[in-house]
C-alpha cells in the first residue's frame, strides 16, 4: 500500500509539474463533468441555443444554471462518483499522454483499455437514484433495462462506482509504470548474463569501477 502511494506521488510529481498535462487533465475532467451533468438535458440545451430570439448571455446563464443539478439531481453517492470519474478521467488521460511522450506505447495502450472500460462503465451509471441510471433507461429502454436496473441493490449506481474503481486502478497501474525507471529490470545477483547486468543504468550506478572490472573479467 505504501509503495502504491509512493509511486502515485512520484508519478504525479513527474506528470503534473508540467503545465501542458495540468491543462489537458483539467480540460478533460471539466468536459466529462459537463457531459454527466448536462446529459439528461442535452436536447433542451440544444433547443435553447437554437432559439434565435434569445440573447446569448441568457442562453449561457441557463446552461450554467443547469450545473447546479449536481446538487439537486444527484444523491450524495452519485454526485461523488460523477465528480470522481470526471477527475480520474482527466488524470488518466494525461498520464497516458505522458507515457506516450516517453515512447512507452504498450504501457499506455494497456491503460487506455482499462481507462476506457472505466469510462464506459461509469457512463452507464450516470443518472439519478430515483429514476435509475439515465443511460440505461433512455438508451437501453427497448431491452427492458429499467426493470433490470430495479433489481440491483443501488438501482444502477453500481456501474458508476465500478467505473470510478476501474479508473482508479488504471491511474494506480500507470503510476507504477511512470515511477519505475525506463530501463530493463536488474536481475538478481549471479543470475543472467554479465552483458545484461552491466548494460542497465541501475547496475552501472551501483558498481564501483573496481567491481565493474571484476565483473567484466569473469
Amino acid at each position, binding site marked *: 500500500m505504501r509503495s502504491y502511494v509512493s509511486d502515485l506521488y512520484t508519478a504525479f510529481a513527474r506528470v503534473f509539474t508540467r503545465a*501542458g498535462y495540468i491543462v*489537458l487533465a483539467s480540460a*478533460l475532467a471539466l468536459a466529462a463533468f459537463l457531459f454527466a451533468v448536462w446529459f*439528461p*438535458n442535452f*436536447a*433542451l440545451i440544444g*433547443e*435553447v441555443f437554437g*432559439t434565435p*430570439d*434569445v440573447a446569448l448571455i*441568457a442562453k449561457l*446563464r*441557463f446552461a450554467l*444554471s*443547469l450545473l*447546479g*443539478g449536481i*446538487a*439537486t*439531481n444527484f*444523491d450524495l453517492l452519485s454526485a461523488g462518483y460523477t465528480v470522481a470519474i470526471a477527475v480520474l478521467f482527466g488524470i488518466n*488521460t494525461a498520464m*497516458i*499522454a*505522458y507515457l*506516450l*511522450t516517453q*515512447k512507452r506505447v504498450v504501457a499506455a495502450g494497456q491503460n*487506455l483499455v482499462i481507462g*476506457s472500460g472505466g*469510462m464506459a462503465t461509469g*457512463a452507464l451509471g450516470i*443518472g*439519478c*437514484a*430515483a*429514476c*435509475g441510471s*439515465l443511460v440505461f*433507461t*433512455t*438508451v*437501453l*429502454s*427497448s431491452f427492458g433495462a*429499467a*426493470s433490470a*436496473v*430495479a433489481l440491483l441493490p443501488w*438501482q444502477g449506481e453500481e456501474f458508476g462506482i465500478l467505473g470510478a474503481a476501474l479508473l482508479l486502478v488504471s491511474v494506480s497501474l500507470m503510476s507504477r509504470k511512470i515511477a519505475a525507471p525506463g530501463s530493463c529490470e536488474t536481475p538478481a545477483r549471479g543470475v543472467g548474463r554479465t552483458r545484461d547486468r552491466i548494460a542497465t543504468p541501475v547496475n552501472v550506478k551501483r558498481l564501483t569501477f573496481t567491481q565493474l572490472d571484476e565483473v567484466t573479467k569473469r
Partner: protein
Amino acid sequence: MKPETQNKLAITVVVAAVVVAAAALIMVMRMSYPPDEARVMRLIEQQLAKQDGSAAVPALTEARVVRLIEERLPAMESAGKGISEARLKKLIDERLAGKSALPDKEFEARVEKGIVAFIEKQRRAEQERPNQLARNLPRPNKSDHIYGNPTAPVTLIEYSDFECPFCKRFHDSVKQVVDASKGQVKWVYRHFPIEQLHPVKARKEAVAAECAGELGGHDAFWKFADRFFELTPSNNRTDVDTVLPQIAREIGLDEKQFASCVASGRHDQRIDKDIRDAQTSGANGTPWSVIVSKGGKTYVLSGAQPQAAIKQLTELALQEK
C-alpha cells in the same frame, strides 16, 4: 524526434482517441433506438444470411420495400436526397408487374437510395424527438390540479412520483418559482409512479392524492402533496398505512371516506392515463417536466434541476409569443 514533437503527437493521439470514443458512444446511442426501418433491414439481412443462394435476394428486397411503402409509410413525403416515395412505389409496381425497363442493378440502386434517404430523414426526426413528442401532451384541463394563476401564460406540467426523492426536492423548487412569478407561471401536477422502482406504494400514494382532490378539491390535493413530501423519506420507505390517514386527518378530510376512496380503485384509470401520457411523450424517469409557452412552444426539462434553471426556463418561455 524532438520532445516537443513527441508531446504534440501524444496529445493529438489522445484527443483523437477521445473523439473516437465519443463518436462510438453516439453511434451506440443511435443504434440502441434505431428507426423501425433500420431494424427491419437488419431482420431482412439476418433472413438473407440464413438463405443460401442469391436468387432469393432481389425478391425479398422487393417484398420488403413494398411492405415498407404500402403498409408502414403511407404518409412518407418526398425524400430529400433520394427518389420520392411515389417514384419509388411506381418503380416497384412496374417491377412486380414485369414491366420495368430498368436493369436489375439500377433498380436495386434506386430502391436502396430511397431507403437510405428515408432512414436519414427518420434520424433527423429522432434528434428532434423530445420536443415533438412533448407537443402531444394533453394541455391543462379541468381535471388537472393547477397551482398558481390558472390563466398564467406559462405552464409547467410535471410528471412526478411520490416515492422519488428528487421529485421531493423538485416540488419545493417549482413551488418557489411559481410563487415568485407574480401570476406568470402555473404548475400542473400529473402522476408518473415508477412501479419497477417503487412497487405498490408510489401508485397507492398517487391514488391517495387524487382522493384528497376528490374529497377536498384542488386545494386539498396540493395540501396533501406538500405535506406528503414534507413527511416521508422517499425511495419506498414510507409507511403508507400510517402516513396516508395521518395526512388526511391533518388536512381536514373524512378519514373513512378517504380510506374507502383509496380502496375503491376509481382513480386507477386516471393514474394509468397519466403514466401513458408521460411515456408516449418521452418521459423516462421522474421528475419529468414540460414547460409550455403561451404560443405553445415546449421545453422538456428532465430531472430535479435547480430552482435557478427552472426560473431561467420559465423566463425564456415568457419571452415567447
